[in-house]
């Protein structure tokens, strides 16, 4: 797997010293505020877990960062690139994966990756090698030439993950990527994310599975009512809320309640 994930080097675009993601005063309202003056900072090479109850504004935040939604106000900076002023440059270094894998049923996994490579202008040689590596590594080799329409949810999520990683994004954003996956597929996704973080990439992920957040996250942010209400490493959160030795689940419930 180590050969699959290229280390972040200085020749890669964007400012390596800038925060991977910096959000300031972000607001989005659908009649009532979904995200309400959110401030957030993710460091380069960090695995950041964004937690929160249903309707807290996690997905809306991530969709704004990925350029899928326009914020009402506030700023989003990705490795020093203003994602609102220059969304095309920001999208070039971001990989997005949603909880509902959106792929084309009538395409094969390789054709899907071919399409993604075209959209992100990945050069032919790199794209082909990487597509085959991802397919093999995600256990899709035997299905590489089959249309996705008959794939299980786990297989679809793997294809979508391959698409999100094909262009070697510096910031990987995942919204509930483990929903509906079996243990084997979930393990694969977790491994690929860990390997990407080791290679210097940054990951921002939401999940309702708190054990995973506890085990994988460098830092955890808890969002509620569209605002960040707690942030830090697991130890920092325990200290702040005076719950030494408490599990993340106990702390999370204490924070949001």
């Amino acid at each position, binding site marked *: 797997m180590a050969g699959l994930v290229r280390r972040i080097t200085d020749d890669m675009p964007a400012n390596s010293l800038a925060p991977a993601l910096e959000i300031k005063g972000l607001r989005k309202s659908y009649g009532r505020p979904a995200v309400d003056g959110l401030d957030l900072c993710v460091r380069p090479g960090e695995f950041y877990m964004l937690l929160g109850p249903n309707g807290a504004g996690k997905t809306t935040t991530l969709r704004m960062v*990925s*350029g*899928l939604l326009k914020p009402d106000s506030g700023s989003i900076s990705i490795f020093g690139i203003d994602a609102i002023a220059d969304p*095309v*440059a*920001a*999208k*070039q270094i*971001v990989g*997005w994966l*949603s909880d509902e894998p*959106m*792929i*084309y*049923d*009538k*395409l*094969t996994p*390789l*054709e899907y*990756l*071919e*399409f*993604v*490579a*075209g*959209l*992100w*202008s*990945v*050069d*032919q040689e790199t*794209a*082909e090698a990487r*597509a*085959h590596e991802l397919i093999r590594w995600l256990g899709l080799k035997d*299905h590489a*030439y*089959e*249309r996705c*329409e*008959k*794939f299980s949810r786990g297989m679809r999520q793997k294809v*979508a993950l391959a*698409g999100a990683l094909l262009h070697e994004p510096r910031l990987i954003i995942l919204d509930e990527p483990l929903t509906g996956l079996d243990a084997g597929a979930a393990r694969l996704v977790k491994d690929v994310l860990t390997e990407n973080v080791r290679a210097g990439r940054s990951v921002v992920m939401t999940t309702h599975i708190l054990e995973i957040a506890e085990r994988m996250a460098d830092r955890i942010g808890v969002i509620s009512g569209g605002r960040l209400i707690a942030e830090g490493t697991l130890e920092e959160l325990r200290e702040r809320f005076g719950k030494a030795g408490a599990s993340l689940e106990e702390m999370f419930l204490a924070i949001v309640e």
Partner: protein
Amino acid sequence: MSPPGSLLWFARFEARLAWRDALSMLTAGRIGRQRKLAIGVIALSIFLHGVAFLVLRFITGEVRPDLPTLVMVTAGILLAGSAMLAQAMESVTRIFYTRSDLELILSAPVQAGKLFAVRIAAMAFAAAGMSMLVLGPFIDILAWQGGARWLGGYAVLIAVSTGTTAVAVALTILLFKTMGPARTRLIAQIAAAIVGGMFVIGLQVAALLSTGTVSRFAFLRSPYFLALVPNIDSVFWYPARAAMGDLYALVLIVGGTAALFLAITARYAPRFADYTLTAVSGSHGAAERQSGSRSFRVVPASATLRLKERRLLLRDPWLISQSLMQLLYLVPPAVLLWHDLGRGSTASIVLVPVLIMTAGQLAGGLAWITISGEDAPDLVRSAPLTASRLLRAKIEAVMQSVGIVLLPFVALLSLISVRQAVVVALGSAAAAASSTAIQLWFRSQSKRSHFRRRHTSSRIATFSEALVSITWAAAGAVTAISAPLAVLAVVIALAILCCVRAFSPRRAA
């Protein structure tokens, strides 16, 4: 109250679902529109009765069941029958290949066959309802002018719908048994599209080849055709006689189709669950391997979007069959082109509006598929491309596809008349661009599988798309005969486009 699990209980349940589904389709899912919908239905009914009156106003006094009349009535019944058969085949295929509530039904301690019997009956009702909507006003006007005996037309429509539904069930199951679940879906859907337009198109082609006219009515009334049809006493005319109030024929037709329907339903309804399970598991089992695409080829973003659209369209039999319905109407112009080639005939002038209209309608459907029916909108929107570049690539994909379809016609037409070919090329481009623009202004996020429901999301878009295509077609026809009125038609088309733009939600936003 009917006991749970009985036929009547299932019928009530299905009727409630069907009613809500129809309401949601007609109101585009927006609540509080029921009153407007009711007013719309009444207005449409009055309008259709007005049209029927204008068409049938020449009929005064008693209409005798002579051969020309029987031919005309039979043609109407066959027209309705082909549409009903297509609709029923499409419905049966949809039931077979949709998992939806199958597991719930099969896991419940009830006889699933009863529910499927109700669903087969619902198909017949739906088919009859659609035909009554279109042909009902004509029956009403005929009954008003010629006596209540014409109301037998309603009974004939119900008989035809039950008969065609039974045939559709039997045909689809036959296909299923002989071709297997994987192929049946493709064949049945394409067959449904062909059956739907076959009668009208066949009639037009026959008219062109025999009498050299595009008028179906003239052909049906021609001595040439009347000499070919069965004798006036033949049972072939019984449906027409029944529609005209012949009680004996009516009892025979209604009884015969009801018996056929009951026999088919009794035989196949209890096995429907097995067929559906086989179809669903078949479609979820062995995956289809894609041959001939083993090379990995990265192309620029615009080309990659066009390639994706082309692949998705060509691999979707359902979308192909839906688009085929529009392309089928190009068959008569093709026949006319072939017929007139080298004869220097001026009849090809009728091709100009037909081709331009087809280009507009085809572009409208394709534009909806590429612009609104994007199955992975997040992926495309998260790509490092400007929105305008994405949109341009999608528009190019639509215009290219329309061009590919129309180019052979334009090339052939140029052999007859260069002027007409140029007018068709320009008019088609204008109609296709207009339809695409309308789809852009009224775009909404949807799934490709909702293609059939695209007309319900915006009535203004649907209506204006048709209106603009017709206006461009008229402009093309006028231009082809050198009339200065062409400028007026072009101005009208552009004015309609401007009005649509002003009313579009994108503009309002």
